[in-house]
């Protein structure tokens, strides 16, 4: 067991694609760190660099204090679980589990003992003499985990290990994996594109974004899940974490007759919320009369009678998931381009469609008019030029 550190890691592929730029990340001893981000954000490349399967262009990788940047994968003492499991198809489960131990020239008795113990932990005893082709998806996944565990490595590297499972099994394996990690306490770097997986499993979650220039940074924020959700560092993290995604609208705080007023672009009048805007004053002092981006999570809205909330909207569409009801309305987009620093796909419909979560029992019908109140104390404000959160 050991800590895993990336220092100023950059990686450019032979074809010129820049995958990683200036990644600084420290996975503490025994920590479960999740790398999450949209496709192309370099999360898998970073993981493979840790395994030694990808050479980095510059920077340093440390494992337990030892610099392993140029160390062959076979000598790094890490174990990796691949997305497609990569079980050796010509070997039985037993041979798959034993392979890594044989490479380390452990005595046969010790290998047998460890294989048996791991098989016991994962419930693989009865499958030991089967070949991977004769296993179900979930069983293969378990063997892949077993092959990592049996080695007792310094660090686990997992590349979307649950993405090939069906939804039910994925949820089940998610909790099993977390329990297992808690029990073994091995430093783990876990890649996923699924934010639910990231939020539920990680001690800390590192959000990565794609990079295009060498001076960019993949790492947007690395924090415990709650912090990531409650105080995203920038628009990218705010838009990526949370489902449905956070709504972003352009806004402006102006000094009105009765104190500061919040003007949401596309709405004819300021929000009827003078007092609550005033409460935000210390945070937004410097932003008076300047454009900001207001980030409102769907759950920051609550339903009110028309004319009694902060704003009245025309309900375009409603969705009912059972536990939650979602109400969609539209805000007209003001003329002129809006640079949010976000990829188009991470903020669907940019400023056009806004989603509010409401009590399903109170869900209004599409086509009606509804009043909404915004919990401004929890709302997020971002610098429209840099995308950085205003705190």
């Amino acid at each position, binding site marked *: 067991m050991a800590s895993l550190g990336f220092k100023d890691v950059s990686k450019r592929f*032979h074809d010129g694609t820049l995958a990683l730029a200036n990644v600084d990340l420290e996975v503490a001893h025994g920590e479960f760190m999740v790398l999450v981000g949209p496709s192309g954000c370099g999360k898998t490349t970073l993981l493979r660099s840790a*395994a*030694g*399967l990808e050479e980095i262009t510059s920077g340093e990788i440390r494992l337990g204090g030892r610099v392993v940047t140029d160390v*062959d*994968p*076979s*000598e*790094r003492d*890490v*174990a*990796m679980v*691949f997305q*497609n499991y*990569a079980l*050796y*198809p*010509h070997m039985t489960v037993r041979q798959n589990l034993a*392979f*890594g131990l044989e*490479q*380390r020239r452990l005595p046969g008795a010790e290998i047998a003992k460890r294989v048996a113990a791991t098989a016991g932990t994962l419930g693989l005893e009865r499958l030991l003499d089967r070949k*991977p*082709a004769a296993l179900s998806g979930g069983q*293969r996944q378990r063997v892949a985990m077993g*092959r990592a565990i049996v*080695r007792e490595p310094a660090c686990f*590297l997992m590349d979307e290990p649950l993405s090939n499972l069906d939804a039910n099994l994925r949820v089940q394996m998610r909790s099993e994996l977390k329990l297992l990690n808690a029990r073994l306490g091995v430093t783990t770097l876990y890649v996923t594109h699924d934010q639910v997986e990231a939020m539920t499993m990680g001690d800390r979650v590192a959000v990565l974004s794609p990079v295009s220039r060498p001076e960019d940074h993949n790492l947007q924020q690395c924090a415990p899940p709650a912090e990531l959700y409650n105080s995203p560092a920038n628009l990218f993290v705010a838009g990526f974490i949370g489902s449905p995604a956070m709504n972003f609208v352009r806004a402006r705080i102006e000094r009105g007759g009765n104190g500061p007023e919040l003007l949401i672009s596309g709405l004819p009048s300021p929000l009827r919320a003078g007092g609550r805007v005033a409460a935000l004053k210390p945070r937004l002092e410097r932003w008076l009369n300047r454009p900001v981006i207001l980030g409102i999570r769907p759950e920051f809205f609550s339903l009110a009678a028309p004319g009694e909330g902060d704003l009245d909207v025309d309900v375009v569409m409603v969705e009912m998931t059972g536990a939650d009801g979602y109400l969609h309305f539209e805000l007209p987009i003001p003329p002129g381009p809006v640079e949010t620093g976000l990829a188009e796909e991470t903020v669907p419909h940019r400023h056009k469609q806004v989603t509010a979560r409401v009590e399903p029992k109170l869900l209004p019908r599409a086509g009606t008019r509804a009043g909404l109140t915004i919990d401004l104390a929890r709302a997020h404000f971002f610098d429209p030029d840099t995308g950085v959160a205003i705190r």
Partner: protein
Amino acid sequence: MRRKKLLLRTGLIYAGLILVLLVFIGPILWFALLAIRPSETVFAIPPVIFFTPSPAAFQSTFVDPGANRHQLVNSLIVAGGAVLLNLPFSFPAAYALSRFRMRGGKNMMLWYLGLLMAPPVAFLIPYFVLVSRIGLRGTYLAMILIMQTITIPFSVWLMKSFIDEVPVELEEAARVDGAKWPRVIARITLPLVRPGMIVTSMFAFVFSWNNAAFPLVLSNQRTATLPIGTLGYFATAGATWTFIGAAATAAMLPPMIIFLVLDRYVARGLTFGSLKG
């Protein structure tokens, strides 16, 4: 009514298939029958269909005096040698072309393809001169070496497609598991491409076995292979058709047997992709 139509259709399909089959099997069958029919009926018109089969031609070609027996052994030596020499060279080449990015890798594959497409006859004289200069004319080694100019390009193409099918993650997993390159190849890659190696060797054997052009200029009386022996019967006073039939039939047998025995590897080789699951 519908049943009748169906019957007619099936009948037509079978008639078509039999016709196609005749085109392919006909000559082979004719040659095989040539070997066992009396020589005076060979070109008889109308063709003699019923005759008393006799092993006389096989008897004189392979037993007494058995001029072709020695050539059969020569063919086995040359084709066997070509097979043994083939994989140690074509597997590493195919592996490198499959796994590593290299300058001109694609061109190399095209060059191999070019070697395969060029008529071997075009190379006969240069090879003859080359082999004579280095003093190998008439040796088995000369034939085995020159056969590689056909078998290696073909084998590299075939082996590469098999290696391409082995997910690179398996090798990566083995490396992370602590295995170094030679061991990764020995324990992971080689076992997984074994069907491919068998199929490749099979084709290398058949290509070398059937090749008549190279032995024609590179062999001598002592090392001549079976195709050369068969051709020899055209030279003496008129063609001895029954002997030609016997020698040619014997020459056809080993490739046929190999394909029949190893058929399942060819099939497995073609469905190799299903391994990923």
